């Protein structure tokens, strides 16, 4: 594939961000490609997905574009302190990518997938902006950020989401009922909990993946079975 490393200013978080973009090896003139955005876990950065999974072998075959994006330590949501990483993910970044590259401008050609806290970010995007995406996927996602409070997680969750008691009222709580198809890919340690959480939900399915090959197996399954290009 064509690999393009982008450094740009982002208005939402008001900072410079890196983006790793992959386009098919042969870009056809006039064609606009579907886009899958990949979100990293806490403690990682945008390179996590390309280091831990062979993305190109599946994305090239599917004829799609990938964008691996930085969320720093935001979990890809708008923070109570005013850093609009969520707006960046659902609106600003797709517009920028379609403005620069031959990438589709339509929500039906756009997916988001994340791991860990990035999985939470992908599900939040699906919950808050169902009109912006055709679907979302999360690998071993954090389903309730309340679990981060009172731990050694830094920066302290209060600075991202506010007080623990106000997570629901501030809009940081996830509900398992979605308006667009959502897939959870979970290893043995996360599968039961995810199934319990999803059992009364809507448009949500849970699939098992092997912890040893977590991101690549989840990515392959989503690209080959979850996404309708």
């Amino acid at each position, binding site marked *: 594939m*064509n*690999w*393009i*490393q*982008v*450094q*740009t*200013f982002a*208005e*939402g978080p*008001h900072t*410079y961000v890196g983006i790793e973009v992959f*386009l098919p*090896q042969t*870009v*056809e*003139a006039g064609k606009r490609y579907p886009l899958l955005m990949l979100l990293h876990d806490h403690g990682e950065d945008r390179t996590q997905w390309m280091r831990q999974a062979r993305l190109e072998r599946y994305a090239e075959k599917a004829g799609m574009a990938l964008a691996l994006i930085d969320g720093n330590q935001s979990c890809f949501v708008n923070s109570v*302190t*005013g*850093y*609009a990483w969520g*707006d960046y993910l659902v609106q*600003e970044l797709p*517009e*920028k990518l379609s*403005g*620069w*590259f*031959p990438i589709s401008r339509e929500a039906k050609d756009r997916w988001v997938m994340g791991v860990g806290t990035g999985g939470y970010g992908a599900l939040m995007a699906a919950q808050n902006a169902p009109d912006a995406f055709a679907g979302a996927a999360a690998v071993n996602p954090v389903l309730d950020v309340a679990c981060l409070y009172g731990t050694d997680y830094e920066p302290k969750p209060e600075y991202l989401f506010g007080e623990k008691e106000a997570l629901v009222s501030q809009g940081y709580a996830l509900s398992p009922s979605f308006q667009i198809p959502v897939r959870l890919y979970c290893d043995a340690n996360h599968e039961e909990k995810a199934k319990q959480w999803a059992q009364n939900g809507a448009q949500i399915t849970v699939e098992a993946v092997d912890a040893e090959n977590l991101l690549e197996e989840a990515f392959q399954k989503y690209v080959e079975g979850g996404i309708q290009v």
Partner: protein
Amino acid sequence: MVLMQFQIHSKILQMETDVWALIPGTKPAPRRPNGQNQERTGPEENQEETWKVLWLLHGGVGDHTFWLRHTPIESIAESYGNLAVILPDAYGSSCVDTVSGARFGTYLSQELPGILRRILPKLSDKREDNWVSGFSNGGYGSLYLGFTFPESYGAVGAFGAGDKADADFTNIEAEKERLFGKGDLHSSPYCASQLVKDLGKSDRPKPILCHGCGSEDPWRDMNEIVRDAILSVPGDPYHYEFRIWEGLGHSSACCEAAIRYFIQKMMEQ
């Protein structure tokens, strides 16, 4: 601006190679109080816009990072808004189709623009919007490319640029043979003065030509040999301008002065 680093597969070169690009993008603005979002005013939202393109070549021992590291090229280009700067890696090729078969001239003037215009559809494909420039070996390269492939470029900015046909290859004979072949190069396809004269007699497109060097450039005489050859072309088909930057040598300071001048000249046309 936005910095993009490309890994490009070149079928012509038969290798993976680096290309950097600066493209128009949202400028950072002061942060508003209380974390309010700014208005979205970046050029990314303008679907119809196209960008003029400066193909900017490094010197003999440089690479694609040279202009970004040694000059404020981003600050210069940014002030014009709709200019993209493309920084390819030409290695030690002098940007020519070498006799040994590494066809950097064809890659730089034909293949790479085709690849990048498909990846970045806003890059203008009009000849008059595409300019090739460089310093030192890249200056020679811009003469070679502009006058070997004049259908690709509307303007040439050749700085600190002499002609390889006049160069002294003592102690680097092997490199000369690998790139340009043996013998006198004045009758070869690598002679910039001859390329400029030959194009003058043809009915192919004529790029605008801006040329010059620092007053203290140790190879100033070689720039002036090329200058005299260009001035001998009847009718001034290249709207030729030769400039000397006083007090500057074969240096990054001269690169900066020359590219600042060339970009301003082309953008204000």
